[in-house]
């Protein structure tokens, strides 16, 4: 970029340079970013990579209260079977009860919640279970909360079929509008080369 082209009469180069630099700095520093309101996982029990000798529940702690609907958790064992039994959400804490673990080895927790701003947040936590294959009888007894009582299932489907109807109706109206406008537009082109000052005369 040549210096000559940067100036115009009456506006000297230092001023241009100063304004440009300050403008660039301003924009570079201040360029805004849409706010993030995602829930962030602060900690989990068991933690990622941990070895636990005993497990009767999985706890995930987030920085903000979690929506109870849409929360999901899967505990998968080394044999590929699912060991999660039920899910409770209380404020920032998501708790999953687990079935008695039968074998030691690598277990995986997969979780997904819907963040406060409506976006899903998910993650995977891997840990090792070092306990004995057969859980003690006493422990097994404490592990049996009724899954249905405390779980937070996905809400039942709402009976809002009218919303679907509305969407289809909106699509039809949009299509109709486009078609009408397209027809309207194509007419003056065939009629003459210069459109009149106001389109009032066309319809």
């Amino acid at each position, binding site marked *: 970029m040549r210096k000559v*082209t*940067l100036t*115009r009469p009456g*506006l000297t180069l230092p001023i*241009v340079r100063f304004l*440009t630099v300050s*403008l*660039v700095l301003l*924009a*570079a520093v*201040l*360029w*805004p*970013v*849409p*706010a*993030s*309101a995602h829930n*962030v996982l*602060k900690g989990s029990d068991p933690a990622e990579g941990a070895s636990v000798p005993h497990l009767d529940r999985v706890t995930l702690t987030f*920085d*903000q*209260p979690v929506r109870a*609907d*849409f929360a*999901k958790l*899967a*505990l*998968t064992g080394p044999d590929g079977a699912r060991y999660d039994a039920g899910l409770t959400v209380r404020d920032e804490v998501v708790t999953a009860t687990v079935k008695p673990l039968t074998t030691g080895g690598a277990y*995986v927790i*997969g*979780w*997904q919640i819907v963040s*406060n*701003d*409506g*976006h*899903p947040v*998910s*993650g*995977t936590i891997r840990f090792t279970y070092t306990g004995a294959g057969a859980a003690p009888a006493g422990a097994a007894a404490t592990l049996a909360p009724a899954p249905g009582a405390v779980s937070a299932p996905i*809400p039942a489907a*709402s009976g*809002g*079929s009218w*919303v*679907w109807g509305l*969407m289809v109706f*909106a699509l039809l*109206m*949009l299509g109709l*509008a*486009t078609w009408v*406008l397209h027809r309207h537009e194509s007419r003056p082109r065939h009629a003459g080369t210069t*459109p009149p*000052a*106001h*389109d*009032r005369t066309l*319809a």
Partner: protein
Amino acid sequence: MTLLDSRPAAADRRLRALPLAGLTGAGLTAAVVATWATLPEPPFGLPTAGPWVEFGLPVTRFVLDVAALVTVGLSLLPKLLGFDHPEATEPAASRARRWAVYSAVVWAFAALVSTLLSAAEVMPGRFPDVPLYVDAIGSGQGLVVSGAAAVFSAAIGIFAVRFGEKVPAELRVGAAVFGLLPLPVTGHASNWYWHDLSMVAMELHVIGAALWTGGLLAVALLLVSDRELLGRTLPRFSRLATTALLVVSLSGLFTGLVELLLSPAEAFPASLVTTHYGLLVVVKTVLAGVIALLAANIRWRLLPGVTARRPTAFAAWAAVELTVLGLAYGVAVVITRTGG
């Protein structure tokens, strides 16, 4: 001096398509690449929404954003043209009125598809229950309100096509801007003290960005081939763009600082490079610097020539600036989805 006598029609059309092609092409590329780069590991053992939703959602959201800003810009164009010389401005104005309706229709359609895909993303593994999504989650309501505003905007636009500038431009701009408002509000949690002020700042930011980008796009799309009209209009747009830049910067300063300082995941300076979100912020900051350079180039190098009705490279520079703006918009779409 009319719009059509200076150039052959085909070259004119190619030149006109360039800014929009740059904006959308760069933006879609940025959205897809940034989505791919930040794709989270799927949660083990749970159903996922699949690539159609993961990539389709940012793409439709980008289309929504661009269609909205095109609608705003085209509705704004008559105000920039002025009403003193209707015979000179009417060809461009009538074209702007028609295209505004088309872009509003695209906007409404993108809002519908976006609602459907968002519902599918939240409830993977089953058929998306859109009513439930809209009922339970604020972003769904925001999309529906935005789509409704787009339909309203298209309806007003059709009246404007029929009755010309008797339908006030302010009403059209207002309807289009109203459709932008629900999107940032509903994508944000309200769990802290400065919430209201932050909302206002983000709304100002969205309005300023749409007026700025949309106005530049409308000018670049419709006026580049008419040196007389461009010379009369660009100074007006330049004043608007300066104000918009100030508003966008100040509102962005507030939201940006607050968000970075309040993020619980990582400490502030480190989070710029350790998180996906921070990296996208850095990318966008670099793009913002480039955009400011390009804007300054148009403002101080080209504007005197344009005002004097001399031939300038305004069309090419505007296309370049819009391409970089498109990149920034594409990254922004992914930022809103990635979050902190």
